[in-house]
């Protein structure tokens, strides 16, 4: 029978995952302000503009506003504050 040996686990220490409940959903989008967040990936602006046009054509009662963070892949508290203060929902795209 082959000898058994003990070895170390090579992985680091993961952080605790703290659950966050999702925000309440909207009963209807009529008259609501939906921010379309251009996350600044290449061509995301073109995608977001097409999304804006889709809402204008298919759901004209939804008020869409396009917004961009200050820079790519960096949290922009000012942008988030604007969305939270003036918006009812957000769609972020397109990228990771």
């Amino acid at each position: 029978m082959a000898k058994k040996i003990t070895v170390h686990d090579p992985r680091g220490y993961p952080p605790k995952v703290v659950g966050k409940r999702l925000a309440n959903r909207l009963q209807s989008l009529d008259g609501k302000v939906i921010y379309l967040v251009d996350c600044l990936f290449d061509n995301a602006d073109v995608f977001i503009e097409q999304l804006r046009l889709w809402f204008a054509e298919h759901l004209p009662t939804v008020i869409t506003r396009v917004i961009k963070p200050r820079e790519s892949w960096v949290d922009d508290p000012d942008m988030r504050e604007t969305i939270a203060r003036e918006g009812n929902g957000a769609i972020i795209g397109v990228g990771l």
Partner: protein
Amino acid sequence: MPTVPVSTHVFARLAKATALAAGMPTLRNAFVPQPVVGRSPGELRAYIEGMDPVAKRPFMQVVLDGLTRPLDDEDLKGATFERSTPRLLPPDTEENLQRLFIENRWTDFLPIVLPTEERVEQMLRGTSQPRDRIIGRMRPTAFREAWEFDVEKVAVNAVMAGARPEYLPVILAMAASGITARSSSTTSFATISVVNGPIRNEIGMNSGIGALGPYNHANATIGRAYGLLSQNVQGGSVPGETYMGSLGNNWAYTACFAEAEERSPWAPFHVDEGFKPTDSTVTVFFGGWYTHSGFGPRATWKEKFIRMLTATDHYSPPLIVMDPLVARAFHEMGFTKRSLIEWCAENAKLTAREYWDDQWVTTLIRPHAVAGVEPYASRLRAAPDELISIFTPDDIRIVVTGGETQGAFKMISGRYLGRGPGTDNKSKPTVLIDEWR
């Protein structure tokens, strides 16, 4: 605030894993096909009016549902949980443990040395640092969760890579850089590490013939240890989950060499960066995306340099690695290292049209240009056919190494400072090894 993130479908597994780690396993994602880059407005409109390739439902139905479908119990509770990794694995046979390490993707798929308690103890004799000293945190990209690690975890991975105890201070310093050698960027970045100072010779590193190749135990295993520890202490480098590099990168197997300080006509790299000649340092360059090679300098070296510099993917500036023969020839022509770098920055020019027609320049640099940050703002103001400088002197670094069998040099994608994906460290990629002895 009800929110729906939109990603391309190849990121579906990663999006799910990221949402879980953020405590929101029921996050309502929507997906469009890959790619978005390069697609016309009409093609992107077709994505919007088409199917979500992950949900297999109309994309806009998924989006609207995500904003309006009432929450259920699962949505409301979120997910809080502790995770842990054991210090030791359950005893098993060597054969079974080797299989376990491969199945768990804890290796680079080359043979590893199993990190037994005895071997890890031996490795830890290479440093005076306590085994439980927390070195820092590491993650595959800036938006992922960061995992913590200590001296012992680095020693474990150093054993796996086949390193010797005397190399451990170098490996600990690399780990302390805060830069992962296993970035999950789609651009398949790797790291290239350069060792300076007395420790190069103390541990027998190669800065001669074949310095960048598999011809030295220290060079090979230190670079490999950095890769293994990166993937393991950060919680993985698994394709589709924690690794998204489309092509992958052969620099990622191992890329570590020493500078040939004694045969360079110029000051050592670490002295340029403010360290003393007697300091031992390791510098982590983040890149490896491209590698151009050439000979010289010959009569037309300027044209050749300009061709090579402008052929780089310019969001990732070059680390120029020169054989001492090349460095001494430039020195005899009257160049200092700094004046040669300045010449490169001055003469590497593209039209503004070409400069901005790059997905990472657009993604990473354009927002700063729009915000008025120089020199990017001037580049954005340039007319499309105007020639603009694509690098500043601070972007470019030169390191001297090699065996003088040929006047060879390489320009390797290797960002030293500044903006870019895949690392939290934007400011101090040269680490003092002596603190980790």
